[in-house]
Each structure stands twice: as C-alpha cells, then as structure tokens.
C-alpha cells in the first residue's frame, strides 16, 4: 500500500512540475491541480497509513487509542483541498482575462517568434 501511494504521489508531482513549466496557461493550471492532488495525498500519508481504523471516537467510550488513526492530517487535508480548489478557480479567471487581453494562451501573453 505504501508503495502504491508513494508511486502515485511521485507520478502526480512529476507530471505536475512538468506541466507547470510548459508555456500554455492551460497546461500550467492542470499542472498546479496535479501538484495540489499530490500534496493532499502527501499530507494524508504523513498521518501514517492505516486501514479499518476510524479517525473519530466511536460511541461508547474511548477504549484503546491504538485502534484509531490520526485525525489531524485528515482535517488538514480537508482545509488544503478547499483552499487549493478556490485558488485554482481564481487562477482560471486570471487565465481567461489574460486570454481576452492578449488573444493568446501563452503564459507571457505573446507567442514566441521562431526566426
């Protein structure tokens, strides 16, 4: 399970960074989204991977704490998802404004000349 998760985070990050460095705004925004997915999974992984362990106390007492998984990273992930999502939406608006002003989707607002 650890291997699958780490490979997934690695692939997402690598694709995200590659796309982030591309010259089209749409590629940049997809790159940023992939990067934020990778980061969210990473935060989740930092709470250690457990299966069949709830993050909140079950009714009827505390019992054995080792039966529970760490709830803090899960709360952090929720916050990070919301913020990341809002920021991506905001970036989309700027992207469209830039496209409207310059008529191109190049990140510098003009096509590179090849001459």
């Amino acid at each position, binding site marked *: 399970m650890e291997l699958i998760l780490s490979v997934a985070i690695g692939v997402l990050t690598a694709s995200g960074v590659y796309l*982030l460095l591309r010259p089209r*705004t749409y590629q*940049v925004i997809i790159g940023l989204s992939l990067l934020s997915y990778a980061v969210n999974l990473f935060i989740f992984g930092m709470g250690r991977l457990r299966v069949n362990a709830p993050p909140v106390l079950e009714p009827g007492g505390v019992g054995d704490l080792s039966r529970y998984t760490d709830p803090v990273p899960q709360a952090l992930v929720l916050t990070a998802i919301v913020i990341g999502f809002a920021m991506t939406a905001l970036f989309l608006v700027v992207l469209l404004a830039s496209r409207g002003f310059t008529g191109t989707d190049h990140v510098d607002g003009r096509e590179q000349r090849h001459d």
Partner: protein
Amino acid sequence: MTDWTNHLLILPILLPLMVGAAMIPLDERNRMLKGVMGFVSTLALFVLSLVLMRMASSSEAMAAGNGVYQLGNWPAPFGIVLVLDRLSALMLCLTSGLALAAQAYSIARWHTAGHHFHSLFQLLIAGLNGSFLTGDLFNLFVFFEIMLAASYGLLLHGSGPLRVKAGLHYVAINLAASSLFLIGVSLIYGATGTLNMADLSVKLATLSAGDRQMVEVGAGVLGVAFLVKAGMWPLSFWLPTAYAAATPPVAAVFAILTKVGIYVILRLSLLVFGANAGVSAGFGQTVLLAGGLLTIAFGAIGVLASQAMGRLAAYSVLVSSGTLLAAIGLGHASMIAGALFYLVSSTLTISAFFLLIELVERGRDAGADVLAVTMEAYGDADEDEEEEEVGATIPGTMAILGLCFCLCALLLAGLPPLSGFVAKFAILGGLFGLSGAEAAPAISPADWTYVTLLIVSGLAAMIAMNRVGIRTFWASIENTVPRVVVIEITPVVVLLAACIFLSLQAGPIMHYMQATADSLMNPAGYAERVLGAPRAGGQ
C-alpha cells in the same frame, strides 16, 4: 489569571474580516461610504495595535498569562492559539499604519479603478494580522492563503494587459510556493506530531536522529515557500514586474508582504532552530546568508539599471529583503535589534516612495514608455481624468513633491540624519560590537562582505535616485505641473514624518527593538508562556 483585555487579541483578525464582508453586498456606487468604513476600521486597528504593543511590553501583564489567546479555551498544543509578543505587536502596528496611508491615498481616485477594492483591502489586512498573531504552523498557512488570495485580487485591481500578465505569473508562483508550504508543514507534523511552534521548539531537542533530519527537510521546504514571498534571489524574478505593475496604493501595502516572509523566517529560525535546538541549532543560516548577500547585489544592480521609478522602488524592496535575510543569516544576536529597526524604517520608506511615484509621474510626457502602466489605468478617451479629482489641489506642487522625493532618496540610501542611516548604523554597530554589551565578536570574511554590500547598495540607491530626481524635477520645465490633491500627498507626508519620528525617537525605539530581540533570543521563555498559559475561567 487573564483579564478581559486578552480578548483584544482576536480583534485584529475579526474586525477587518467582518468589515470586509459587510462591504461586499453594498453597491459599488457607494465607494465613498466603503472607503470611510474601511478607513475607520483600519484606524481602529491602528489604535488597537498601539494598545497591544503596550500590553506586549509590560512584563507584568505577560507574566500573568496575557498575550496568549486560546481559541475555544483549549490549551496549547492541542488547541489553536494566538500569541502576542513584542515582535508581533510591532508588525501589527506597521501593517495598520501602512494600510491607513494606502487607504487614504486610494480614496482620491484609485479605488474607482475596479470592484471591491476596499473589501479586498480589509481581507488582506485580516490575513496579514492573522499571520503575525498565529502560534501554529497550519493556521499560518490558512492566514497566508487569505492574505495571498486578497493580494491576487488587489494586484489585478485596475486590470489592463500588463497587470493581468504580472498577475498570472504572481498567482502561478505563489500557488506553487503554497504547495511547498504544505509539504513542509506535513513533513514537520509527520516527524514531531505537533504543529504548534512553541511545542515544536521544545520537542525538537528530544527527537531521534532520523526524525530530526525529517524536521530539517520539512523546515527547508517550508523556508523555500517563505523565501519566495520574501524575494530572495533566485526566487525573486517575479517581484519587480508584479510590484511595478500594481496600482500605487496596492504597491504601497505590498511593501509589507515581503516582510511577512522575513517575519516567519526570523521567528522560526530563532524559535525552533535557536540555542536550545541541540544539533540543529542554526539550521539554514548559510543559505540565508548567501541568498541574502546575492539578493542585495541583485537588488542594487536592478536599482541602478531601472529606467522607470516603479521598478526602482521594486528593486529597493529586494535590497531591503536581502539586507534583512543576510542579517538573520549572519546569526549575531547583537544585530537583530538593528535589523528590526531597519525593517520598520525601510518598509515605511518604500511604501511612501510607491505612493509618491505616481504623483510625480502624473505630470510627465504622455507618450513616455514609463507611463505605460499608469496611462492604461486611466483609459484612453472614454474616461475623463479631471472628473475623478476629489478635494482641493495643493499649491507649490513641485516643491512639495521634490522635498518628499529628497527625503525618500536620503532614507533609501541610508544617509544621515534620517532613520535609514540610524537603521544601518544600528545593524553595523551590532556587527562590530559597538553596543558594549558584550565583547566584540570576531569579524569574519562573510561579515566584511555584508558590510561592503550594505554600503554599496546605499550608494547604488543614491546614484539611481539622483539620476531619476534630476531627470524629473530639474529637466521638465516644459511639462505640465501634475495636479495633486491634498488627500493624496498627505499619506506620503505622514509616512515620511513617521520615518522622521523614528530618527528623532531612535533611543526609546531602539530600546523596544532590543527588548524584542532579547525575547526572540529566549525561545524557552516563549514556549513556556504559550504552553503554560492558564485557561480562561481558571482552575
């Protein structure tokens, strides 16, 4: 036992948040009402920050458990805490002072350039205040994002191709930096199981070697996110374009955004990697030193090479950041007080300069390349510029503008008798051990490089300001005199007067800075105060 005054701690976050939210449903035509609401709110924050500063410097109140605000009455490290100390009170005061000036300035005309200016402005202040007050890393992230989200909106205020292009780069860079921030925070949590800064500083010494390395990796990744914000070379190429493209009141308040990065680095490096961190003590100082020195050099070259005044001011921001980063990186305890004084002085100066630039350039040749940004903000023909003037214009415009420009030049270059000189003198005095409090430390080659760069950067600022000043004030007789209204020049004058006040009252202010530096050098005291704070209602 804490008293009711402790509840004042949450107000610097709540007040702007609520005022900003209350303004959103108001019609955009009621700009003046919004402006007045925002101004009153910021004024209240300024008064509040002075009260908090007083509270932070009274040791009885601090010893009684004031200054640590436990949200939901959960004790740290399990609950979220807001922590007030001298440094955060100082930053709150600086923020609200700058915001006050920028807001007054915007009322004259700039707030009409787009929608929701005043709401965004209040949200920016809420984010800034939150970042300065919070006592744990994840809340720092949240407040940081509030601040950044508002700053994206403000940078785009006024629209136009130049701003949108600069905004696009700014947003992309900061989103990538936020990802690094989260990776750093989660690495630190994974290794230590805590996000509370005070708890972190206590736990670091007890970690196993493997976990400690993971914290260091986390801190390094986290540091990169803040260094992007602070504008350390080579993470700073976005900064001059973005700051020069922003509208003047926005650029003026952006002068403190770089200082948020500096603040966090100063706080974390002294708190977590301070004297009691064991093997990890002084982690990252080499990077800060090298990066800081390179930033000063890059900024100074940029200052010399700038054609437009906006870029000159933006490169001055970099010089200021570099000076502070390198001062932290050198790691001499005696320099911190001077560095804090420099932080306040340089932020006020750069802010005043950003406001002044637009007033000066207003009268210049319409076709000039340097005016490109300002011109498109006014629109081509469909917007009548004269109509937007509010209030009386001032007499002797060029004389007053010229005087303000001279003061800015003296402050930026660090020449006597103003606070720019006092600040640099205090830093260098600390470096050479002039305070007499301790034996003079050995002066290393790195120290000499720092001294040289600090002085050369002052010279570069002087040359650049001279050149621009001569071109603007002595060679433009045929140009029309700009129309400047009282409400626009007053903020500039007030900010510069604050710098003069800093120079006149340098003694008492340096005492405050010294006390701040001493408390920063005592991370155990901070940790004890946060972790040992009594709960409200008492037990």
